């Protein structure tokens, strides 16, 4: 079938070439640039990876949730050769982080940072040195992550809060904190407000960035730059500000403005509250922020040197993040990057050849990737994707820099951009809907001489808000659209500087967003009338809506992903209106067997939800029909 299609494409290609002057090329996909290579795992090894540590000699160390450390020789599988696995250490307690330094591994167990040394050169650790240990209450959610070395050779670790229906830090000392373990093993508390900090890094400037998972006090996934004395938002760890060595003055949950207003507003009232550098809008980007690494490959991994790759465990994918400093503080944007990993992508580290090892696990933690565990390598094949390389803030808008020159006509067409802004509630409740969404009308665009940059000049730049920058119709010189046409910029600070000179050669600016919004409203009204009735479901339209609103991030028509399949939902025979209610205000207790709670999606227009709901319910009748057919066809 595939071959047949391929042939057809070629034939059609010839035809079009002859008929039309321009041909529309086949759109390229992520795998045309970044290829996923699967590292084979011997039968019987449960490689539920918690940590990845490439070694300078080309071997790779990985630690697992079952407490093993494997050293893999030939993990690059050069010329299709087999990797070889050696059990270096075992018996650790849910090891979720591994580093290799000066001939030894450092591994974080639940309650201990352990140095693993092979003193007799038999390829097996014989010394399990306790570098530091800390208290635990015994709650399962008290995961410990790290270590990540800084330049001085000290190690950073992060500690989850316990889960007792909410995030609780007081059950054991320093839960909910970023701590530094010095070479002598002493522990220095650095910052708190951490909820589920599964991934963090020390960047080339020596700054600590950590990723947070949506939950209580966390409206959506996000990455925050942590400095000594910062409070990143979750109240669980504040209990330990009472300690004499706390870098924060004594703070309690009562000091937090728990009003449900945006975090940006709350931070005005609470000095220690640190704003995230980049929000990763829930489900639109990821659902469970995991590891991150800075591109220090000097081009071996493509055109993104100095940028960051951020993984999402639940969606089995990599995202990209750019940072800039505005008014002395990190802020920036996130972008889709690469989907399709085999299991829950928890850890990523650079291999020696500029490819990226991705350690994966999904046991008990739902993930899009179907395997229970896995180890893969992401390799750049040398071709440059047409991407928004960076989106950076300007006093009156944003500047998009591309990886390739952009087609000027498409870049100057204002209707090719979809811009808006929104944020989340800061509150003790779990998650948040999107709130305060507003249009950010585009006044005009300026394309640079070399067509590598487009400056968007906008109205309604909203400080503290997440700005969606979508550039759907832009093409490069080959007629290819952007590989990913969306970015979310977190505008904590609006830079000062020269305003764009507004004398655009382009057509009269139109308020794209407003027009679309109005259209939506009309549609919604119409549907109100017909929603409760059966009406013809346009599957193709719904498909677009599911993509647009990122529903497909967690749900698939037929198979369980992070959330239940639509077919499964259909079986519950909810009315369309009930589905609308549940989309806006999910009831996770209805789905006790799913690990990840659904976030409220109240920003999705009612009309769209009802269309989706009708489609979901149509799956039920479809199934019934199929069954009937079967019966009828029986001999």
């Amino acid at each position: 079938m595939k071959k047949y299609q391929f042939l057809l494409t070629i034939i059609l290609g010839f035809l079009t070439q002859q008929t039309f002057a321009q041909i529309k090329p086949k759109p390229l996909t992520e795998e045309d640039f970044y290829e996923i290579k699967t590292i084979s795992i011997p039968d019987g090894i449960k490689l539920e990876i918690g940590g990845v540590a490439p070694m300078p000699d080309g071997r790779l160390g990985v630690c697992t949730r079952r407490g093993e450390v494997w050293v893999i020789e030939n993990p690059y599988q050069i010329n299709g050769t087999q990797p070889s696995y050696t059990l270096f250490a075992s018996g650790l307690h849910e090891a979720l982080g591994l580093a290799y330094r000066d001939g030894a591994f450092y591994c974080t167990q639940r309650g201990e940072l352990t140095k693993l040394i092979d003193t007799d050169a038999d390829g097996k650790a014989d010394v399990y040195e306790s570098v530091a240990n800390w208290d635990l209450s015994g709650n399962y959610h008290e995961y410990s992550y790290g270590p990540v070395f800084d330049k001085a050779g000290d190690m950073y670790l992060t500690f989850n809060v316990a889960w007792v229906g909410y995030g609780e830090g007081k059950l054991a000392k320093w839960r909910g904190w970023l701590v530094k373990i010095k070479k002598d093993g002493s522990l220095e508390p650095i910052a708190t407000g951490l909820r589920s900090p599964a991934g963090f890094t020390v960047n080339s400037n020596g700054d600590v960035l950590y990723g947070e998972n949506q939950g209580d006090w966390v409206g959506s996934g996000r990455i925050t730059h942590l400095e000594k004395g910062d409070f990143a938002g979750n109240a669980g760890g504040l209990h330990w500000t009472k300690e004499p060595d706390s870098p924060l003055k004594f703070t309690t949950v009562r000091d937090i403005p728990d009003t449900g207003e945006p975090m940006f507003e709350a931070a005005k009232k609470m000095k220690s509250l640190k704003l995230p550098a980049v929000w990763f809008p829930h489900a639109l980007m990821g659902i469970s922020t995991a590891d991150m690494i800075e591109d220090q490959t000097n081009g071996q991994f493509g055109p993104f040197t100095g940028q960051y790759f951020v993984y999402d465990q639940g969606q089995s994918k990599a995202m990209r993040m750019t940072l800039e400093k505005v008014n002395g503080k990190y802020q920036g944007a996130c972008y889709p990057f690469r989907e399709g990993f085999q299991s829950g992508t928890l850890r990523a580290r650079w291999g020696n050849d500029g490819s990226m090892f991705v350690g994966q696990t999904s046991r008990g933690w739902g993930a899009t990737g179907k395997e229970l565990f896995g180890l893969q390598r992401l390799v750049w094949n040398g071709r440059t994707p047409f991407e928004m390389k960076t989106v950076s803030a300007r006093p009156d808008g944003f500047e998009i820099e591309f990886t390739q020159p952009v087609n000027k006509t498409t870049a100057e067409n204002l209707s090719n951009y979809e811009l808006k802004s929104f944020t989340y509630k800061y509150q003790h409740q779990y998650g948040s809907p999107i709130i305060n969404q507003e249009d950010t009308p585009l006044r005009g665009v300026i394309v640079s001489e070399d067509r590598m940059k487009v400056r968007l000049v906008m109205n309604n730049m909203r400080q503290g808000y997440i700005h969606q920058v979508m550039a759907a119709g832009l093409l490069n010189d080959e007629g290819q659209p952007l590989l990913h046409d969306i970015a979310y910029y977190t505008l904590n600070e609006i830079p000062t500087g020269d305003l764009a000179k507004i004398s655009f050669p382009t057509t009269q600016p139109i308020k794209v967003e407003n027009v679309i919004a109005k259209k939506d409203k009309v549609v919604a009204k119409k549907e109100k009338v017909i929603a409760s009735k059966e009406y013809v479901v346009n599957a193709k339209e719904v498909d677009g809506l599911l993509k647009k609103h990122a529903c497909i991030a967690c749900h698939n028509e037929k198979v369980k992903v992070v959330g239940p399949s639509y077919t499964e939902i259909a079986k519950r025979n909810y009315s369309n209106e009930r589905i609308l209610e549940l989309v806006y205000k999910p009831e996770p207790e209805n789905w006790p067997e799913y690990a990840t709670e659904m976030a409220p999606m109240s920003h999705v227009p009612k009309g769209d939800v009802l269309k989706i709901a009708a489609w979901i319910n149509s799956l039920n009748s479809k199934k019934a029909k199929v069954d009937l057919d079967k019966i009828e066809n029986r001999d």
Partner: protein
Amino acid sequence: MLKKLLFLLLPVAGFAQTEITLNDLSAFNNPSANWTIEGDVSGNFNATSLTPKVGKGVLFCTLKGAKYQRSDDLKFNLEHGDIKLSMDFMLPKGSNSGIYLQSRYEIQLFDSWLKASTTDSDCGAIYHRWDEARGKGNEGYEGHAPRQSAVKAPGLWNHIDIDFKAPTFDASGRKLTNARINSVVLNGILIHQNVEVLGVTRGAVSTQEVAKAPLMIQGDHGQVALKNIRHEVLEKPTVTFSSVTYEYYEGKPDDILAQKIAPTATGNMAKPTQKIATAKQDFVLKFQGKFNIVEADNYTFSGIWNGVGSFIIDGDTLAKGWFIAPESKPKSVSKKMSVGEHNYSFVYAKDFSWRPNSLGLFIQKDHSELQSFTERTSLLDPDPVPLVEVKANTETQCQRSFVMYNNKKKTHAINVGMPSGLNFSYDLNQGGFLQLWRGKFLNTTEMWHERGEPQTAEPMGLTVNSNDKFPLNFLPNATAEIMDSLSKNDLKYKGYKMEKRSNFSGNFVYPNFMYEYKGLKVNDMSTPLDEAVGISRYLRFEGENTANMPLYALLAEGSDIAEVATNRYAVDNKSYYVQVFPTETNKIIMRDSKGKKQLLMPLNGLKEVSYHLIF
């Protein structure tokens, strides 16, 4: 999961068991002179006899008479059918006895200590049956070896729990169902579960199976001591059920209950079952039936269902509401019932599909077996959780985990499994043994199944509890109290080294735990003793004594400590032995401390101390 299942099927907690008083032999039918009442007995793991101590509370088979005289078998006055039985027993080296349920089905008591693999003659076995007609060498058949060896060393107390279901017969005496061992738990280890015994075992008083017969202990093969004999005799259930009528409605339960919808099906059947409902959701199923009470008594009604239900007895609503198995607790309520016919009805409604239809309704007379109103498949079984096991057959395995110890979670614990079949769990924060066990190594299901929220690992063998205390203590004098736990400042855990040691079991590595204790550098290593009789613990310490106090080693602690031989003590109700090695100048001190006994050894001038734990 097993616990969950038992909990579900036995909604009413077990009634108090009756204890057989052992002040004299009046509980027994014409006991032979072999049997005496004693205050205590003690033995030694290499001694072939037990030594009694005058007093009351312990039943002792002295084996004074000649061997193999059936008149020495001890018959209880207690006659039983279904029974839950528990007791402590002690055997000397090489001894052989047995618990004969109904004087016919033997659970073997035998000194099979240290046996690596088991047969149907080993301790805890359901002993084989015997038929000479099968020909020489083939007479024994249908015995059941215990799942693993679980008996302690001779001279230590063992504990056994037996749950037995007697055979049943029709009015003409024809056997309807076989006798069944519901379960045998020896020293905390499940060694049999749901095994049918097709006929009497060897040595039964009769080959004729009966509904009721006395309990019997074999008394002519070897010495045995018994105490804490408790039982609960379960009567055969007597409730009978008439057929039921049902009405089945499809649609929204609210509409159905508002009588807007006519039934989809009605009918009559022997027992209620949810299988009548063909829809997975949006239905109501109503049952109405009668049952007959033969004996007036207290009865417990219980129910498990997925959905909403209402259980009505004689017009009285006993249990009602929303329920989800297995998360919800069974609904159960007790009621005094008079003799005669009674009515019951059950309304079962379900408006969701995400759990399967499931319904179980039960009645249980006090001290009787649970009876089901519902058809046998109406209540769905919970999905079994697969075992996740760590084995230590060929190499020493260390596995850190949380460990439950005296109902508390120890968060910095390590389990060590040694190829000799000896294992221990150890509190790294305290430098103390938590548990020692023999047999299979570790059950990690609660760590590695799904999210593993408990994060606890459990021993899989015969386990003894230790004291979770670091042995070394600086004390002002030999009467000063030892602290219950040490702070991180006083005792600093530094890690462990895997070091090679050679012993009877071969060349293996073992963890040598490293500590700093008030200026001392301490190494703490445990290895298997020869023939795997127990574990040897060896502590080496050096450095400056900054405490300016003499150093002592705490070698044992327990409710009681009895010296059974020179430098050998049985500890904590004789649950394990401690072998100590005092010197001329550093002699063992036995002392009382906070209601417990302790063995202390001064360590003046010493750089090391070792002791053995044998069980």
